[in-house]
């Protein structure tokens, strides 16, 4: 079960993930990020406060856009991951490639400071 909300605030987009990301719905996540990238924004925030679980297929989606973010100089920050999900990012090593913050304030700060 996954629901995704995308909202705009100031100069950035916020993608809020609710529920679980697995092989069956990772395509939805992919579409949303694709859509966000196709817009004019240079700043994307992922709200992971309600993300309960992410499978390798979901991680694969984030991973596949890392190159695009760098090329288009898009700032991409994830915040609010619970311990379990954070651990998944950490084990795979994605926390070394993606900025991950605890709170929304920290995340926004890192978006606009950079």
């Amino acid at each position, binding site marked *: 079960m996954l629901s995704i909300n995308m909202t705009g605030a100031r100069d950035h987009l916020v993608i809020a993930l609710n529920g679980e990301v697995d092989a069956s719905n990772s395509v939805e996540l992919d579409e949303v990020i694709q859509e966000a990238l196709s817009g004019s924004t240079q700043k994307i925030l992922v709200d992971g406060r309600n993300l309960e679980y992410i499978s390798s297929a979901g991680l694969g989606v984030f991973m596949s856009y890392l190159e695009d973010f760098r090329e288009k100089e898009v700032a991409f920050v994830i915040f609010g991951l619970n311990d379990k999900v954070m651990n998944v990012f950490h084990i*795979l090593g994605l926390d070394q490639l993606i900025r991950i913050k605890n709170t929304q304030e920290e995340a926004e700060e890192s978006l606009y400071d950079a």
Partner: protein
Amino acid sequence: MVKLPNIQRGKIYIMLAILTWFALLFVDLVRLFGEINQMEGDISREITWILEIIFFIILYLYFNDSINKNENSSFLNLIWRAASTGLIATTTSFLIIYFYYLLAGSRLSDDPLLRNFFYHVNFALTSLFLISAALLWKHLILYQKSKAVVQQWQAYEVILLISMFFVLINQESYDYGFMFGLIFLVIYGVILSVNLKWIPYLTFREKWKSILFLAIIIVCTAYLLVQLVSYNQKNIDFVNLSENLFLLGLFAFVLIYAVFSFLVTLFNLPTSSVFEQKLTEAISFQKLSQSIQPGENEEQVLDILMDSSMSAAYVDAAWLELHAQEEEDLPGKILHQKFISNGERQELMATLKKTEPFASYLNEQKNGKLEYIYGKIPHETFQSVLIIPIRANKKILGDLFLLKEVKDGFNKEMINIISTFVGQTSISIENYRLLNEAIRNERYREELEIAQRVQRSLLPSELHHNECFEIDGFSAAADEVGGDYYETYSFDRDHFALIIGDVSGKGTSAAFNMSQMKGVFHSLVQLNLSPKDFLTKANSALSRCLEKNNFITTTYYTVNTIEKEIHFARAGHCPTLYYSREKGAARFLNIKGMGLGIVRNESFEQYIEEGKLHFQSGDVMVLYTDGIVEAKNEIGQEFGYDNLRNLLDLNYHLPAREIRTKIIESVFAFVGKEILPDDDYSLLAIKFKA
């Protein structure tokens, strides 16, 4: 009991019948000769009667036999058999009369002995005709057997048998007893004669023929009756053979049944076309309901539908329009256009699109529930139109257009039967498609089984080790094929390599990537690289092979049993669980790492760390994939890292195989039986001994 073969039995009956007839003739002639010459020693009449009864019984048995043998002959054949026997008997009787006509005036013509001889000939043929006809009627009466009818007939046979012997008891002719018996037989004959269920099954032509044959039978029977009776009136000194209740009863029965059949067939003539129509419909229905045979296609079923519908409603013109099927990429087309030209059809279609109620159906969205549309149109040739949509799998496949030149040409029954045909066609087509799909799925399943076998063979059947450590592995896939991988390699007696890996995603695509990983492992392991270099090279190789959003997590270990050293590096894989005897506790070996295929350039190396540890006897190392720690129970809780570590703390003292079994059993017990595994589980347990 001795049972004679059938053919023999028939011949024996004929022989016996002839012999009996000769005996009868002889006895009667001798008696008559004696009477004429007023000789003593009169032969009693009983002998004649008994011979007559024997003659009847033998004939009855013979015909019963021979008709049963030809059980499958048509009704018309049966009636013809009776009619022809009747004709032979009648013709013979005419020939005798002609013979006497030729002899007119001569002394021979008055000779009672000769007359008596011909009387016997006539009698024999008449009996033959009556008995054979009665048994043919039996066959017709019992065409649709019910218990009641069979019992009726059996009772009739018994009554006939009794009636044969009546003559021995009561020698007074035409007294009350005799008349009573006769009336009883006649009434019984009438009751039996209402069983005429075979008649509707005759076609129109057959009915005409049977009317003719029945007429012949009626005339012959009537003539033979009159003739036999007149013989006796003219020749009072003969023993009266015809004054037998059996024979007269048969006369009555044969005549009554023939008359009934004649009348019923005659009155059935006008409605026979309706019955034939219904029969054709039943056959059409049966044709439609037979699922499409291999080698045939849907168009052939539609063709049968067209023909059946057209004949059911006496349609003047028709066509079938198939709609374009987007999914199957089929264009719309006109199929089976009958008795109408392309131009006419287009012109009619234009008219239909302007005329209600057709316009709203043809122009707008197809109404999913509509069964048929029927109405009249302003057209010079065709006055009434019926459109029936043909459906398969809840979609409208096409429309059947039926046209008639008369106004209000379709009645309720016609529309009903055509709707039934269309429904049956839909079922046939659906079945055909389902069958094809099933065959296709079966093939996929077989291919998947092959993939499964191939993939099982990718996991090692034997794990390399020496006396310094035990090793035991387990792997289960959630789908038919999985993406977990482990392998061992032995450089020499004391140097080993171990690897465990998990491919992102699951199922077939994961299995393909796993086989790539196996190839990479076997290529690189021979270079005897350090774990960090190994993973860097593996990443470089896999970055060129994996799809954009696929990655592989793995941990690579080298084991040196002389130095008792393990070197390892982790590429995004779950941290290794290690029990140290010295510390008396298990822990996860947390070192930095990065999954293979995530960073697809040289910078990958900077994300990888290499770890090193010394092992001691009694240490246990557990390698696993994320399926183990992420296994969920029915309320959605994960098995988790802590559970796994606690398990090892409790069971570290066991041999490797038992540690492995304990952990897998705990995971399965945690998940519960009701829940199907949704990820692949793999586990390797290594126990160091010396």
